[in-house]
């Protein structure tokens, strides 16, 4: 399968994580195939945060899990440092992946309901046979804004949604990762705790030279934490843009649609106008549209869009676009 292009990838020597032509498929009834991720590529520099935005169901979590090899992708390559993670034995994966951690999307369901907070935090290191002191656990709990004295003996169901999410972040930090993949890590938090966690991730990143992949739906949150933002649609990459340019310079019709749909917390906010509703035909990963996958919803679609898949190409400093209708006209039309 043709990829969505690799123009946005950086020189090999600078990357801590390199994902190339990643494909994730699931078998479906009747011999069909779910095309969850269809040949995406991305990389991470040391200390960089890549934000991923995209339609619900476009393959963000599948991509994150495939990078972790949980489960391994259908095809494609994932390199952590200079070590390949795909096509090696499960044991080798486990060893090589040790410095990469993922915070999963549904916080509560990833926790063993019978374990107490103090044990849940220590679980990761213990699996690796490392002993953990009470103090280490307390430090990390405090770092995520949980009071050890209050939550120490609690089980997951005794925590609020946001408290659970903070616990999950504490668990990941306990393993001192080099690359952290966060799947919707703040979507269940109030804005103050969200601010706390984003600040915390920013600090941790600096202190440990951590690189991050950060998946979320809130554009302002993603912009705040990221250096670079990748926008996905139906298993493909449609745009890669420097975080600072997201609001003003993004060009892809889907990115513009996202920007127009953002609800703003201001007194003057009324129903959000502008953004068009998806047409009758909902895009499906079982039978993706030919050419550009955004075509059925795109106001700018032309005949070319139905036959030729757009590839990522550079349109500005650190800015890459996969759309046939680019250049100055595209931003005017959005």
């Amino acid at each position: 399968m043709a990829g969505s292009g690799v123009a946005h990838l950086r020189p090999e020597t600078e990357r801590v994580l390199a994902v190339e032509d990643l494909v994730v498929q699931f078998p479906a009834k009747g011999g069909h195939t779910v095309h969850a991720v269809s040949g995406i590529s991305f990389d991470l520099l040391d200390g960089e945060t890549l934000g991923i935005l995209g339609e619900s169901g476009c393959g963000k979590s599948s991509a994150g899990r495939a990078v972790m090899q949980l489960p391994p992708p259908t095809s494609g390559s994932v390199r952590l440092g200079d070590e390949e993670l795909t096509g090696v034995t499960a044991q080798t994966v486990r060893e090589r992946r040790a410095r990469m951690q993922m915070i999963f999307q549904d916080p509560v369901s990833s926790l063993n309901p019978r374990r107490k907070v103090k044990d849940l935090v220590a679980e990761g290191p213990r699996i690796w046979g490392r002993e953990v002191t009470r103090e280490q656990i307390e430090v990390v709990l405090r770092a995520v804004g949980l009071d050890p004295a209050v939550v120490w003996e609690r089980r997951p169901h005794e925590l609020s949604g946001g408290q659970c999410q903070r616990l999950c972040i504490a668990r990941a930090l306990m393993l001192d990762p080099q690359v952290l993949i966060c799947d919707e890590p703040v979507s269940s938090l109030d804005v103050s705790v969200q601010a706390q966690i984003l600040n915390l991730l920013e600090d941790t990143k600096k202190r440990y030279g951590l690189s991050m992949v950060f998946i979320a739906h809130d554009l302002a949150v993603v912009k705040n934490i990221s250096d670079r933002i990748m926008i996905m649609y139906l298993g493909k990459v449609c745009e890669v843009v420097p975080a600072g340019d997201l609001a003003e310079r993004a060009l892809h019709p889907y990115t513009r649609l996202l920007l127009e749909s953002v609800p703003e917390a201001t007194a003057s906010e009324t129903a959000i106008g502008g953004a068009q509703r998806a047409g009758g035909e909902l895009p499906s990963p079982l039978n993706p549209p030919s050419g550009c996958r955004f075509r059925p919803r795109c106001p700018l679609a032309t005949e070319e869009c139905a036959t030729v898949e757009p590839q990522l190409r550079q349109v500005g400093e650190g800015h890459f676009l996969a759309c046939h209708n680019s250049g100055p006209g595209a931003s005017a039309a959005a």
Partner: protein
Amino acid sequence: MSSTSAVLQERSTEPGAPVLVVDDLRTQIHTPRGDVQAVDGISFTLGRGETLGIVGESGSGKSVLGRTIMGLYTTGPTMTITGRVLIAGKDVHALSTTALRDLWGGDVGMVFQDPMTALNPVKKVGVHLTESLRKHRGMNRAQAAAHAAELLNLVGIPEPRRRLDQYPHELSGGMRQRVVIAMALANEPALLIADEPTTALDVTVQKQILDLLERLQDELGMAIMLISHNLGVVAGRADRVAVMYAGRVAETADAATLFDVPHHPYTEALLEAIPRLHQPPHVRLAAIDGAPPNMIAPPVGCRFAPRCRYAQPDCTAAPPVLDAALVRGVADPRHSFACYHPVNAGGQ
């Protein structure tokens, strides 16, 4: 989804009567370490077609409030509930177990906060939807399946027929959340309690779902209690907003007033913590210092005092009560707050 408005009218009491009345509601959770006063004296009413937004600190009791209103939490060995909840005139905490079951999926629907815990991992998506349709609306298997597919279509899930045949883990996070929304809407409830219904949705789908709820509100007069951390969503969709802190309402007003002239220091701090799209990346966000109170032994006086930048000695003596704001000396019944030293209160 319009054929049943007749049924709905029959269900509700006289027009104008509130769909939901919550009166001095308190939920105490008994734990081995002590009693958690999760909801501590909350009162409000919600009329037909109205949306009340509930925002507030994580752990402030929003979900417990929703579950207590639903009658999912009742007085028993682990909990004590006092106060009253009336839904369409029925006293929820006086209902029998059977009557409660009729209420759920009948007059009231709930979208639970964590979709995965609301879905049974070994049951297919279709079963989740059809069970209640068959029970509450007497549909046969085929009718229920057809209606279930229509519901999934309504919440914007592509290829609904195929999705009915899948297990929850085969869906993306946002699809699972929309399944839970479809379940809550299946029987066109008079009251919808939506606990963080759009956290897993991208902004375009989020907008579609909120538009859908608004449409159902117009068509059916559904009342909505919208619990959300997304202040943008609440600003755009709620008629009134209540800000909760540590089990109590700190401030309540219509959305525009609340975001424009917040009087409670906690509301003000909450608004400051929001990242804005026009800010450059990596700006330090304004989190509220300190930790939320331990709800087993909350501070006496104002519960926000340990974290409040305006706190003065009188704040810790007795709890401030929720009182009407004054606009040029006149009490504004639509805007109340609980604070001794309000902000933006120039004319007070």
